[in-house]
């Protein structure tokens, strides 16, 4: 008997449960886009280089093109569709709109998911490659423009909207005056 090449799995996405059979080769990204019709998560390179497919897995950012759907079973997945509170945009989303932190919009869902995680990671005291003092007792470094640029560098934007992306993240993080 040929080995099975598909399984029924349950994915927890944006607070909803979805049970579906998936081909074992299916990435989380393709499961979201092609099976669950959650196309807000974008496919820019399908090889972990551009960040357009960034989602939150158990609250941490991850590129969904490098996750197999079967390996995401049981994890809390947040996509761009789950960021707003009904019709009320999340402050990060609102800042991207108000400050024009995008142009074509294709990298935007990934940028926003990354920004959500950047703000959390910073608040939790995680250093980055540009943090001067990385001793735990030093606490979170000031969230400067350079810190935001470094922490957002996993998400490419070919339209060249970085300047306003940095401003949008700073506004949402409450450090607009500092950058």
């Amino acid at each position: 008997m040929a080995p099975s090449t598909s399984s029924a799995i349950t994915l927890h996405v944006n607070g909803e449960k979805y049970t579906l059979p998936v081909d074992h080769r299916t990435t989380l990204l393709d499961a979201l886009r092609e099976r669950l019709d959650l196309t807000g998560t974008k496919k820019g390179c399908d090889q972990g280089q551009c960040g357009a497919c960034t989602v939150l897995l158990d609250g941490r950012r991850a590129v969904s093109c490098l996750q197999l759907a079967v390996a995401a079973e049981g994890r809390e997945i947040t996509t761009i569709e789950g960021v707003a509170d009904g019709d009320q945009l999340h402050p990060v989303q609102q800042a991207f709109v108000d400050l024009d932190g995008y142009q074509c919009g294709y990298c935007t869902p990934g940028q926003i998911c990354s920004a959500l995680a950047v703000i959390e990671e910073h608040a939790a005291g995680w250093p980055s490659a540009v943090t001067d003092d990385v001793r735990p007792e030093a606490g979170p470094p000031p969230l400067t423009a350079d810190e935001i640029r470094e922490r957002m560098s996993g998400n490419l934007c070919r339209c060249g909207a970085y300047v306003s992306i940095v401003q949008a993240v700073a506004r949402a993080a409450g450090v607009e005056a500092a950058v």
Partner: protein
Amino acid sequence: MTTMTGTPAVTGAVGTAHTRVEGVAKVTGAARYAGEIPYAELAHGWLVLSTVARGRIRSVGADAVLAMPGVLSVLHHGNAPRVDTDYVGLLGKPDPTLAVFQNDQVPYLGWPVALVVAETSEQAREAAEALVVEYDEEPHDIAFAAGRDGTYTPEDSAVEKGDVEAELAASAVVLDAEYTTPEEHHTMLEPHAAMARWEDGRLEVVDSNQGTMWVANELAKLFSLDPASVRVRSEHVGGGFGSKGIRAHQVCAVMAATALQRPVRVVLTRRQMFSLTGYRSPTAQRVRLGADADGRLRAFAHEAQNLTSTVHEFVEPSANVGRAMYASDAHHSVNRVVRLDVPTPTFMRAPGEAPGSFAMECALDELAEKCGVDPIALRVRNEPDAGPVSGLPFSSRNLLACFDEGARRFGWADRDPRPGVRREGRWLLGTGVAAASFPSGAGPSTAAVTAEADGTFTVRINAADIGTGARTALTQIAADALQVETGRVRTRIADSDFGPAWIAGGSMGTRSWAWAVTAAAKDLREQLALGGTVPPEGITVRSDTSEALATLAQKERYSFGAQFAEAAVDVTTGEVRVRRMLGIFAAGRIVNPLTARSQLIGGMTWGLSMALHEEAVRDAASGGHVGADLAGYHVAANADVPLIEADWVEDADADDPVGIKGVGEIGIVGAAAAIANAVWHATGVRHRHLPIRPDRVLLGGAVAPAGAEGPDA
């Protein structure tokens, strides 16, 4: 039903910042791009590309693949329908790359040889990767260098005024320098994607492109269809930059949908995009400038060369950039081409101007140094009263106002002109400047504006918003012309059924569409002003700008700009960091300051990326790319980009109903030169080859591109 009389007039939307009308859709993930719309019975196509750079296909092992799970079809040159390529489309004759599977010849590595169609994308991909294609391989030649054998001068690519050689001989100061720019790729974040299906006797294509009518007309010609029977839509486009026209994926999707009689979607992979969707050719340029001791130009000579494929000619018009820029007694500029076993290059953001301005504006900076003149003063000295070659008047030319404003804001007056004198720890610091120019044009367009019975208005125009903000700008323009709030106007775009309109290209889109929308909206307002009620089906007025454009006076119509950059060069690693950039532009009337600023800064970001990062590398042995992906091909990431500021001076075009010139491309022009000039100012070393990589900095600018060393290099 609503009466339209007595409504207070509202204007002032144009010139006021307006967030994107599709903004909420883009930040919530609700905006659907071409590959994201579900269809019942959708099948998935996956392209198979050649693995040799030249030769013939001996066999395609379709039978083995057809037996794989889910596989529906394998299209290749042995079974694909014939298409008609003997036509002239919007931008000339078609590139044979898009007319897929027509013969057994392979003219470059990454040429489409088959399409595998399956029930799911996983099945299609596995089958495509399993398909065995055998080739009779032939030796290939991909070595690009100026003046190499096979170089030719295409028709109408040279301009001559006066005697350049005589003026050079009579000049007190002569600069003669060669510059190169590498192969560069658009790499928009959304890969090319198309869904094709037959519906009620019509071919429907949902695509990601820069002009639906352009793609619809080419598909109609290729497949010998009545143009009215083809409908192409492209509501949201994840970037284009010149690459999203008619391409292999749409043609494949149509072939497969026709053969299978069900909807077929073809999405290119990131790697496939490197050989199938065009790119900017590498260039080799020589600039010769002859001047009097005070810097007044006597001779201006710019010779540029690019490569193209063996199957289609594309000229990167780098040498055209000077034809409207600087006064000189004699002028010579020419673009030359050589055909190699590589894919066909295409238009990429500021084609010609981007690489051409790098060479020309670096050469001006070198001449300023030789003459001991400030680089801005040198440009002032050579400012023409009329087109330097054509003699035609400028519609408006506010380049010097850009330099004045930029110099003031950048602090240029405080600059020590000597190179290599500012040091901060391990960093050498310098500042540089360059001029920018880009043609302003408009293409014929039609629009329809409808007064709806509920008091709102609907604009229908076959525009494309590839991230430019065109949808929002046209909403503002329509609102002002109708004298209503923008909230009462909805703008529908990117549907070939709306009728002909110009493409999102050449910085001409918003100007072309705004003209048509203004005309229709004004007519409608005049009709409504006569009074009466709006019937349930609304009142629609149409416009066509063809006649108005045909009678436009011949002038030199350009946007201009002044680019400023500060660079820091790490003397230990050779790393170059750009610390700040400022661009001041004279680019017509700015419709939406919020999105226009994004466009200009985006272009300047491209200039930074071009100066320091971008370089597609080919392997001489295989003829293909090394690292054809976003890890191998570097574009600027967030941490590479400092605070970039863009602003503008008053420059409304009096001959345009809205005063627009276009802002899509001017931002990249001159930006790489300003950075290279800043690197010289920091280090005292001229960098004439892009990108300015750390190894080039450490070796003092001496590393020329590999291709220039000849085929054996």
